[in-house]
């Protein structure tokens, strides 16, 4: 039906531009869209951020509360990352429990935070048998492509502005959550032998052929997720790592200013 034809036309257009190394919104292949980060927008949350990448918008809220540690890690705090692809954000999102896409989104963001050791979980012990639980809730508002990077950026931005609510739970004075690294995710679309960094929704019409590479401030790769059914060659993979390391530095500079 009409929907499909439109999508075919869009796809052909994206591909034809790509043939000339051009993108439909005029960007260069390795050019990120404009990023805006607003923090502290949800005063009910311990930390929060609204991230815009082009028209893509995500709100991330951080809530903290005391709780029991996992039995096998009694001396470490807990991070729980959850993503809601609420139906507000896209005509294709439906109300209901998290599907594989929102689960993947949450888990990749979680790994970026966790593996970069941005939060020292050892410091989140309150007492014996009592640690801080950090809930990172990702709330997609508008999906114009690359929710992944917007969510990662939102998560670290929210954490950077999080105050540990010790007073509310009678465990001492409030203090800023210590954040010791700044993991940054870079998502690219791999198609037709090209790498399109930060793909827009329109560009996704050529296929869900993504890879997200997250790195820390020492240029370690801390998380990789190939997402979508496509052949990735070794050469492209190495190229992707290089591009991601370069781009992440630019974005990390923005985070430094929060």
């Amino acid at each position, binding site marked *: 039906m009409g929907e499909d034809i439109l999508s075919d036309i869009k796809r052909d257009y994206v591909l034809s531009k790509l043939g000339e190394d051009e993108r439909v919104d005029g960007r260069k292949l390795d050019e990120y869209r404009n990023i805006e980060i607003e923090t502290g927008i949800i005063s009910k949350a311990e930390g929060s951020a609204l991230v815009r990448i082009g028209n893509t918008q995500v*709100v991330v*809220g951080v809530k903290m509360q005391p709780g029991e540690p996992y039995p096998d890690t009694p001396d470490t705090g807990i991070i729980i990352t959850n993503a809601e692809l609420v*139906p507000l954000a896209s005509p294709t999102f439906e109300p209901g429990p998290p599907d594989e896409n929102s689960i993947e989104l949450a888990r990749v963001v979680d790994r970026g935070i966790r593996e970069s050791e941005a939060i020292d979980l050892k410091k989140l012990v309150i007492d014996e048998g009592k640690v801080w639980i950090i*809930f990172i809730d990702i709330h997609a508002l508008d999906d114009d492509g690359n929710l992944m990077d917007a969510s990662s950026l939102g998560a670290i931005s929210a954490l950077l502005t999080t105050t540990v609510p010790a007073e509310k739970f009678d465990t001492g004075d409030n203090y800023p959550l210590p954040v010791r690294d700044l993991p940054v995710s870079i998502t690219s679309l791999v198609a037709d032998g090209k790498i399109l960094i930060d793909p827009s*929704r329109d560009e996704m019409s050529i296929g869900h052929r993504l890879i997200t590479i997250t790195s820390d401030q020492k240029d370690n790769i801390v998380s990789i997720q190939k997402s979508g059914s496509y052949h990735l060659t070794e050469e492209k993979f190495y190229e992707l790592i290089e591009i991601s390391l370069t781009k992440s530095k630019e974005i990390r500079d923005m985070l430094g200013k929060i």
Partner: protein
Amino acid sequence: MSDEMNDEMQLIVDGKRLDGRKFDELREVKIETGVLKRADGSCYLEMGNNKMIAAVYGPREAFPRHMQDPSRAIIRYRYSMAPFSVDERKRPGPDRRSVEISKVSREAFELVVMKELYPRSGIDIFVEVLQADAGTRAACINAASVALVDAGIAMKGIVTSVAIAKVNGEIVLDPFKEEDNYGEADMPFAFVIRDGEIKSIGLLQMDGKLSYDEIRKGLEMAKKGAMEIYRLQREAIIRKYSLEEVE
């Protein structure tokens, strides 16, 4: 809603409310239209410390098929609170309260949307509470109304909502969190407004304790408040269309 703690909780001091408002004064309302790209219509609204975003999708093919009505559109309304919108983190997903709010809100919108113009289709209204500070159902309805206009959905009127409360024995407009928690009654209204006039009550709930006379007083106050909000809704819509140089 509980009046157990009335005696202890002083919510009116020197004839003023704790946040400095007069009894019949609204909180500050900010409305912005067209804030989302993917949705067919959208609206961001603040009402005091409440922050919500509404999106409208449709008319589009209703799904699943057997839900389609061959003579009119099916309206869905989803009121949803973000986990971080409240003091104590809320578990994601609908709870009983949000199911009830979604139901009565949808019933109000069914009064104005010209459903018979859109047979077999679905019109979906999704509202996300990003920050909650009492009166969220009213604020969400106000945002949803504007998003519906923004989506170009044909309507026989606009829905505008506001609550009144009883606080330390006084009827007040648009209660905020403390008044809601420690007040004696809460009564949210949604009015159908057409040609700049209130035509009817589309949503009405109440809990607490109110006398007949207090209800009358509250309704008058709510009507006045709703008309103020209506003007702000109208302005937001006009503002967007003038920016777009449509008119």
